[in-house]
């Protein structure tokens, strides 16, 4: 392994980086080794085509796993895909994986699901690794103390061909959340609070390490939710130091180290947490007690407010560019300054996505929904993160709770988080969504998205409007 990038105490990020540098050039650009590569159908066809044209192979098929997720139908899957271009993209992935020898979980495989749910579930995601995927939410895997980030298709091709990437090291940001969150407050609220505080460009150029007692107390699912949305804070990657919670989650999974390798791996993983005295370029502190259940009101994930707040007034914004963005957002969202967020009526509820479609998220939603019916004007759907999450939820009887309440119980995929399949909002429709982006048109042209936690989404489904989940908890 190459020399350390800094002398003295190192951060978790610096340790992982140093262990993966193959070559460092004078301007600081490094060639780094990539341990795991996840592939999906949308950002890979042009990369495989590039390999084909150049006569190149996939260097490490054993380190590469492909899953179809963005385009797959979440209903009537046996009937195939009706949209011709979506079908072609799915078929192209099948063909490419076969030709290049890459393992693929296809639509019929119960291990199929959202790529960032599948990787950890299979034990493919491990501490200290570098993990990439042609998808910005690759940051999810940082929950395990792996350096994981999204790349473009040209870089997908680069990794397929060389198992490396040309990168410059990021700056280090520490976000520490100490204390204990109040009732109804989840990892999603913690992360929305972070994004609300630092903004969608706050983490640009940085890798964020999440620390503090409130982060440490989170399950792996919660940590994944936080790291997942690091990209919405502008950071390519999020990290949580690995600990026993991490090791217990990984142990025994199909692709996890076993036998003597397990002990050796854990010994290495224990060396990864940031050294005492390691320094960060930026440090942000939040108190868990200060975070209420949150919801977005605008068209940027930084447009965050407590559910008990009112829609903000652009007139109070001094910066003209920001004021213009607020006015544009309010017009798009169909909201009036001063309106109570709790009075905002919704049409749809989407519980799913790589942010919030794991078993713990479904349990949290079910706990609120149990014994209730969804509001008559609301269409609500649950899209589990993988076939295995769906299976587990059914074993626990969660599907019954959802179905009895009037939810649709779908098959796994990205679904209405981005609406590449037929799960979309219509113009003007308003959705309470557990996904990660509320951009204009994200869930369908003209669709209006409010980001919130699974528990908050469940509460909204029952009342038919944005609702403070604390009122639903006894």
């Amino acid at each position, binding site marked *: 392994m190459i020399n350390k990038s800094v002398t003295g105490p190192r951060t978790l990020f610096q340790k992982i980086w140093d262990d993966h540098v193959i*070559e460092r050039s004078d301007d600081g650009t490094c060639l780094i*080794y990539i341990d795991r590569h996840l592939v999906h159908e949308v950002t890979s066809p042009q990369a495989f085509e590039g390999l084909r044209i150049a006569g190149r192979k996939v260097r490490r098929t054993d380190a590469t796993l492909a899953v179809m997720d963005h385009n797959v139908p979440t209903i009537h899957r046996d009937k195939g895909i009706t949209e011709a271009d979506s079908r072609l993209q799915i078929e192209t992935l099948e063909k490419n994986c076969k030709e290049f020898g890459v393992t693929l979980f296809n639509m019929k495989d119960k291990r199929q699901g959202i790529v960032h749910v599948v990787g950890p579930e299979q034990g493919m995601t491990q501490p200290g690794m570098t993990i990439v995927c042609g998808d910005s939410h690759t940051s999810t895997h940082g929950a395990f103390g792996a350096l994981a980030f999204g790349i473009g298709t040209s870089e997908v091709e680069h990794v397929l061909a060389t198992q490396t990437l040309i990168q410059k090291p990021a700056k280090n940001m520490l976000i520490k959340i100490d204390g204990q969150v109040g009732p109804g407050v989840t990892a999603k609220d913690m992360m929305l609070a972070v994004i609300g505080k630092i903004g969608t460009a706050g983490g640009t150029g940085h890798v964020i390490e999440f620390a503090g007692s409130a982060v440490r107390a989170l399950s792996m699912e919660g940590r994944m939710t936080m790291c997942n949305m690091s990209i919405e804070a502008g950071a390519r990657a999020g990290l949580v130091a690995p600990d026993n919670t991490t090791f217990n989650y990984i142990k025994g999974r199909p692709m996890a180290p076993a036998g003597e390798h397990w002990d050796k791996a854990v010994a290495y993983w224990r060396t990864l947490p940031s050294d005492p005295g390691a320094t960060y370029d930026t440090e942000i502190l939040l108190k868990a007690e200060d975070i209420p259940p949150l919801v977005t009101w605008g068209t940027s994930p930084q447009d965050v407010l407590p559910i008990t707040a009112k829609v903000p007034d652009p007139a109070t914004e001094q910066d003209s*560019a920001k004021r213009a*963005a607020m006015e544009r957002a309010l017009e798009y969202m169909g909201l009036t300054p001063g309106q109570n967020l709790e009075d905002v009526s919704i049409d749809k509820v989407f519980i799913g996505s790589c942010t919030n479609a794991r078993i713990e998220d479904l349990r949290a939603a079910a706990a609120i929904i149990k014994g209730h019916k969804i509001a008559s004007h609301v269409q609500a759907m649950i899209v589990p993160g993988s076939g295995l999450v769906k299976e587990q939820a059914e074993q626990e009887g969660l599907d019954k709770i959802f179905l009895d309440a009037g939810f649709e119980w779908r098959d796994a995929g990205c679904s209405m988080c981005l609406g590449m399949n037929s799960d979309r909002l219509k113009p003007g429709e308003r959705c309470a969504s557990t996904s990660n982006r509320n951009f204009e048109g994200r869930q369908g042209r003209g669709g209006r998205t409010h980001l919130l936690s699974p528990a908050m989404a469940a509460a909204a489904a029952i009342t038919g409007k944005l609702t403070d989940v604390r009122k639903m908890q006894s």
Partner: protein
Amino acid sequence: MKPFTKLKAVAAPLPLINVDTDMIIPKQFLTTIERTGLGKNLFNDIRYQEDGQDKPDFVLNRAPYRAAEILVTGENFGCGSSREHAPWALLDFGIRCIIAASFADIFYNNCFKNGILPVVLPQAEVDTLMKTAAAEQMIEVDLAAQSVSDGTRNFSFEIGEFRKHCLMNGLDDIGLTLEKEKAITAHEQSLMADQPWVLKSA
């Protein structure tokens, strides 16, 4: 990849902050398996009405900006999804250079893989160039000199040496990296010795 050296061209003003890649190229066009052909759908939802007609007030629907090769825009351009379809769509439309006070990391990186030069300048200088663009005056970009000019004023910008070299020569990263095959193999051998589970368990 087409080399980028100098460019003197029409610059389109797009004074929006936090333009995300969903806005640059909406999801319904991501089902393509090609890199080309996305230019007609660049900024689709803010450029066209539901019926497909041009929105006449959108900048790229107006002369002379239909022929723009430079885009001057607000901070944090290209945030959100990693989709390289965003730079593909810009390039396919004819945009070779984007000027802003800041860019999202992945988008910034993706530009270089496609011969697009993202120029970062202080907001005050971007504001000046925004006015130049709005006045339909040409902007000149010189990568070797790392400068942008509106004819009267010159602004210099920073760029990494390696990226500049690749962009000026239109170099393919993969070819360069494959020349380092020995070093990559050596890394894999040390992994096999020190962290065998990384290689063995997938």
